[in-house]
């Protein structure tokens, strides 16, 4: 089950070019902070900023629910709704937080953790994981950090579907029950180099206009 971590956050002014906007965000990132926003529950959105080290910690732990300490005795319980990465995927550049009531039902993506050695791999198979996360519905305080999938009994040709996942009590899968999580397939095999054939793409030509009489 997800542990609720308390993270310090600084509220920003809601005025453009003072607390929000591209230049302000860039300045924050240069200072080692990450701009973020809290929204939801029909309250006004609140722009905030967090330390990038704290974000790294959240990602490492896989925490879905956080308690944001906004200073002056104010705090918000939030869900991580969206993460924006830089173009190389190295750093988080913005985070969306959704105000959460711990007792309400929420939908969230939970990552799949593969455990064990599949015997089918020794039979010449390949472990294929088409989905690396599953969408679940549960109470905000019951979101699991990950869902463990044991593949130690998986032989060649066998499949684990969403409906076969062992979910914690109070957690239901939203993803289709027949969606494949893991399957052991036979790899396509080595690819041979082929001689290049001199072919050209077909050029799409406009249909000729009929001559007017």
């Amino acid at each position: 089950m997800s542990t609720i971590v308390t993270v310090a956050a600084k509220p920003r002014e809601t005025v453009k070019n003072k607390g929000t906007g591209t230049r302000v965000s860039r300045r924050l990132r240069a200072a080692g902070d990450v701009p973020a926003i809290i929204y939801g529950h029909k309250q006004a959105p609140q722009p905030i900023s967090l330390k990038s080290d704290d974000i790294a910690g959240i990602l490492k732990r896989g925490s879905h629910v956080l308690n944001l300490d906004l200073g002056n005795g104010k705090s918000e319980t939030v869900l991580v709704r969206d993460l924006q990465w830089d173009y190389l995927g190295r750093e988080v550049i913005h985070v969306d937080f959704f105000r959460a009531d711990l007792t309400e039902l929420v939908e969230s993506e939970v990552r799949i953790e593969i455990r064990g050695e599949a015997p089918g791999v020794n039979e010449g198979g390949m472990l294929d994981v088409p989905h690396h996360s599953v969408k679940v519905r549960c109470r905000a305080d019951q979101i699991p950090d990950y869902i463990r999938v044991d593949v130690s009994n998986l032989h060649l040709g066998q499949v684990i579907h969403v409906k076969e996942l062992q979910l914690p009590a109070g957690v239901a899968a939203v993803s289709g029950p027949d969606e494949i999580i893991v399957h052991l397939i036979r790899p396509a095999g080595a690819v041979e180099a082929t001689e290049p054939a001199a072919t050209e793409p077909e050029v799409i030509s406009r249909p000729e206009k009929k001559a007017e009489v």
Partner: protein
Amino acid sequence: MPMMPKRVKYRKTQKGRVKGNATRGNYLAFGDYGLQVLEPGKISAQTLEAGRIVASQSVKGGGRLYIRVFPHKSVTAIPAETRMGKGKGEVEFWAAVVKPGTIIYELAGINEDVARRALARIAYKLPMACRFVTRRPTL
């Protein structure tokens, strides 16, 4: 056979410049490990094919390789010792235009050491700097 489009509207295209960073195709969508381009440029269909073959040899038939880019752009050339003028040259090869951040190959179903070795062998054949990437954490 190197990859090329099946049908095109125009056989020859203008050269163009590669500007900006990748905003699409810059994360691992299928595999567990990938090769990310760090510089802008063009990768010819022949190079992509060479990468595919070298990766296949490296993983010895195991795993699955995904090629995330396609050579959509034709590159023309004028033959040597030809006087200037007389129009645009003939299509020499087809190339994929890549921006920094683009994932070009992805590998799945193998362990990290094998993937690193396979992707390093591909990177050696590519005309630009690349880096090995793993999946971003999801929340």
